[in-house]
């Protein structure tokens, strides 16, 4: 949902700047027409709407998930470019930037938000009925349906939650960079897939957890930083990330077929 990050961030920025006419205020100043929480609300709302649309297309209209994802990738990026006219929207006030750049003690605010959500997601997935339903729908949707679980509702709700988190992440990103732009989040889709698969999530559904995803993200971060420190060209970095993704999915496929023997 890299392109949705761009769109959500831009919508938040447009709201903060007071509308489309005032949006191109690069370097003009940091006074905002609306407070940061309106921008956050707008950003999250767009994420929720996009998540709902994706979920409904997949469950009710039976469009294959990868088609919806690819279609969304193009449509949301195009809308982001339309909204921003291709340029960045930047210059936010201190309160806005604090969400992305501020600290409580030594801990950056984005890290605190991240910790809150990983704890919340871990609890929901591991200890609640809803979490159990998510795993069962991922593992065997037909078994879940025959057991009386409303699988469409579960699938739509996961897309809505993803949309919400994308909206939140988009707002944090724009606050951290003091700028929202249509090219934000470019290539995040592949990074996310690589991180979760390396972290033990199965692309075939039903397996994975938050702890594994965090380890995957850390490994991925160390790898990316390491490549930069080793002065590896960004072109070669892309090749390495692609190879890791293919290897991780191959391993996942192999372990999945071993389970079914």
């Amino acid at each position, binding site marked *: 949902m890299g392109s949705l990050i761009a769109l959500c961030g831009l919508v938040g920025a447009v709201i903060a700047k007071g509308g489309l006419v005032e949006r191109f205020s690069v370097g003009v100043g940091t006074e905002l027409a609306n407070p940061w929480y309106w921008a956050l609300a707008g950003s999250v709302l767009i994420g929720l709407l996009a998540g709902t649309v994706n979920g409904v297309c997949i469950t009710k209209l039976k469009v294959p998930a990868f088609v919806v994802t690819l279609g969304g990738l193009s449509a949301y990026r195009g809308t982001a470019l339309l909204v921003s006219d291709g340029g960045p929207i930047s210059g936010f006030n201190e309160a806005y930037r604090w969400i992305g750049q501020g600290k409580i003690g030594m801990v950056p605010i984005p890290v605190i938000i991240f910790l809150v959500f990983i704890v919340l997601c871990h609890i929901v997935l591991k200890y609640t009925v809803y979490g*159990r339903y998510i795993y069962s729908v991922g593992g065997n949707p037909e078994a879940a349906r025959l057991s009386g679980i409303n699988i469409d509702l579960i699938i739509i709700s996961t897309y809505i939650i993803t949309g919400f988190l994308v909206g939140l992440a988009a707002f944090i990103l724009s606050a951290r960079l003091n700028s929202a732009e249509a090219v934000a989040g470019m290539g995040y889709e592949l990074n996310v897939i690589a991180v979760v698969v390396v972290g033990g999530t199965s692309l075939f559904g039903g397996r994975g957890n938050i702890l594994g995803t965090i380890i995957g993200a850390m490994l991925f971060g160390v790898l990316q930083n390491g490549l930069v420190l080793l002065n590896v060209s960004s072109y070669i970095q892309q090749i390495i990330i692609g190879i890791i993704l293919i290897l991780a999915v191959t391993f996942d496929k192999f372990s999945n077929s071993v389970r079914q023997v």
Partner: protein
Amino acid sequence: MEQPQYIVQMNNIYKSFNGVKALKDVSINLQKNEVVGIVGHNGAGKSTLIKILSGALPKDTGSILIENKQVEISDPKHARNMGIETIYQDLALAGNLDVASNFFLGNEKSRFFFLRNKFMKEESKRVLQEMKINIKSYSVPVDFLSGGQRQAIAIGRAIYNKAKVLIMDEPTAALGIEEARRVGDLINQLKKQDIGIFLISHDIHDVFDFCDRIAILKNGELVDICVSDEVTKDDVVSLIIKGTK
């Protein structure tokens, strides 16, 4: 003479898929402590009939009575709430989840949205041990268990949910000889517990071993319902193939 006490009465059931008639005027009933076998070729309508009773498919026309009360079964959960449990050919278990999670799938025990994992594990263990099913680890995903163990989980789940009607779709099809025998023992145990069972099977020996009556379907129509003690295996095979004895 005492009237039979039916727990299930399916009357004049019709079902079509895109104009193709899968069931034509099928009527079948089931009593307590009775096993009714449903046999027929592939495409005879066996699975369609049980999917209608289990709430997985809606019927086009006809009526269903559970304990003499007419019902409209809207979905599998509704069927389960009425005491109709189904054990599907492909087991309907989530292979990625452990024994207890599958045992209580769709019927999780919780307190304020939080799962009572310990309780569910103990209960599933208790029921399976009562069924004399030995499972080494209750924590592994059921994908790692044998076919017989998985079938036992599905049957145990039905028993735990106090099923009045049990529908078994090819319960021994994917099992080895020893495991099939074990499932057979379970069917005989269940018969003694006031449960009525519909048994779908391709195995004519299974049908004669377990069933009190045998319903034969052919091309979506009910050809005959026989008392199993009054017919031979050849009669039933002839009914399946030709539609006559």
